[in-house]
């Protein structure tokens, strides 16, 4: 059994006084402190980052981390668009399972606000197909196309999507590390300008800087000594065609469905056992699709059920979604997101989530997506 035994994150937001590797160094030092370990306890590091090479000619992260830590252990760079952090975690788990290590640091980091928005948007588009890039489709544009199919197929409106943002901004309001700590209303969402119709600014996650890190271990002694422990019950990955034009259905993300089925089979628990979930709400439509594709809600019903706010903190139905604020309010430094999601579930399961703590949380799920659904990773933790 492999367990999470430490977590640290920076605040997400516009962190102009810190470089990418300032953030990486900060979270590595922070997570070692949280787990009460020294760097000598760790056998390897996996680092998820998407844009360092694209935006700032900043690659070979292994050697850069080695310099920061003054170490010679293996350091692996993982890139899988917005799923880079989740995939880094998955590979770290597999690395331990394969017997190559006992204790591994997983880092996710991204620096996005040093550049004009159109440059960062073009950089993110590297994760789309060449055809989609050439016609000017952005990621908001791709999700907008999915949103329109969903709305027209099941009879929903832009207002129905807005409930996701209102809920997640409330959770961000409770999270001191969130990019946005401001509550919003349905009217605020509907009045915000379009990014790619039908999606508006307040349907969309922001461009953020930030880094997060976890320590995972199969070392019985270290796990026994650790004060806060969550077991990794499963971490599963699935892929799909990168282009929307090649997908059979546009009202779902098939990679999410496949990864979720594998993860629940591996964890040997049911959907109803999950108390907290961090879902990949890069846009409001993405959380609705995820609730259905992960098997929590029946296909076509999420646009209606979200309006009951049954997954909002304080509503007491035993299943709360995106307590961190999600990508929407906590922020979306793309390489860091997948690690932060698992970190938030870990905080919840170990009773350290502060004002947003969900009581009696026993099982939690993290869902991280790359691109418009070309990659999905689902991780389930238990305590």
């Amino acid at each position: 059994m492999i367990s999470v035994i430490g977590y640290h994150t920076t605040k997400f937001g516009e962190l102009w006084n810190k470089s990418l590797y300032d953030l990486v160094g900060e979270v590595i030092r922070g997570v070692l402190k949280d787990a009460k370990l020294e760097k000598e306890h760790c056998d390897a590091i996996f680092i998820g980052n998407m844009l360092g090479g694209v935006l700032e000619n900043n690659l070979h992260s292994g050697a850069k981390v080695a310099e920061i830590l003054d170490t010679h252990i293996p350091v692996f760079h993982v890139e899988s668009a917005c799923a880079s952090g989740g995939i880094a975690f998955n590979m770290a788990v597999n690395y331990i399972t394969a017997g190559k290590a006992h204790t591994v640091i997983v880092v996710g980091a991204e620096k996005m606000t040093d550049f004009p928005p159109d440059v960062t948007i073009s950089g993110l588009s590297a994760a789309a197909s060449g055809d989609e890039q050439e016609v000017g489709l952005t990621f908001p544009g791709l999700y907008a196309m999915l949103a329109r199919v969903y709305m027209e197929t099941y009879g929903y409106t832009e207002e129905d999507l807005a409930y996701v943002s209102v809920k997640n901004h409330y959770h961000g309001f409770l999270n001191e590390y969130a990019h946005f700590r401001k509550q919003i209303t349905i009217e605020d969402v509907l009045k915000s300008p379009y990014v790619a119709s039908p999606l508006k600014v307040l349907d969309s996650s922001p461009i953020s800087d930030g880094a997060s890190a976890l320590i995972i271990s199969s070392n019985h002694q270290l796990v026994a000594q650790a004060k806060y422990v969550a077991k990794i019950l499963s971490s599963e990955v699935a892929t799909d065609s990168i282009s929307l034009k090649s997908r059979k259905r546009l009202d779902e993300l098939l990679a999410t469905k496949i990864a979720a089925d594998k993860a629940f089979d591996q964890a040997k628990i049911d959907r109803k056992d999950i108390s907290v979930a961090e879902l990949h709400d890069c846009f409001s439509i993405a959380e609705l699709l995820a609730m259905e594709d992960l098997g929590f809600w029946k296909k076509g019903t999420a646009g209606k059920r979200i309006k009951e706010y049954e997954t909002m903190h304080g509503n007491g139905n035993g299943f709360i979604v995106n307590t961190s604020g999600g990508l929407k309010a906590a922020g979306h430094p793309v390489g860091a997101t997948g690690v932060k999601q698992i970190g938030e579930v870990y905080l919840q399961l170990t009773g350290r989530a502060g004002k947003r703590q969900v009581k009696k949380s026993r099982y939690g799920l993290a869902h991280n997506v790359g691109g418009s659904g070309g990659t999905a990773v689902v991780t389930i933790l238990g305590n």
Partner: protein
Amino acid sequence: MKTSPVKVWRRQKTLRKLLGMKGKIITWTVISVPGHKHKDQAPFPVILVQLENKQRICGQLVEYNESDLTTGKEVVSILRKVHKPSEDGVIAYGIKFRPAS
């Protein structure tokens, strides 16, 4: 993020096979916040089209009225400049669509 002239040339070799084809809009959006190559064009509509031969492609819709932006609308593929020239001055042409009627 530079555009290689060779990449433009390679992609354009297959374009003629897609010209003059009819299809229907499956889904669409209007991009208001574009990447830097399309910065001068915003806002612009992008549609995903199912052609009569069942092939699907995406492209911008041009020469349109607001009422043409509807799922199911018939469109026809045409050749247009797709984004601003590269630093080498190579103009990238590609498929766009206009309403069929």
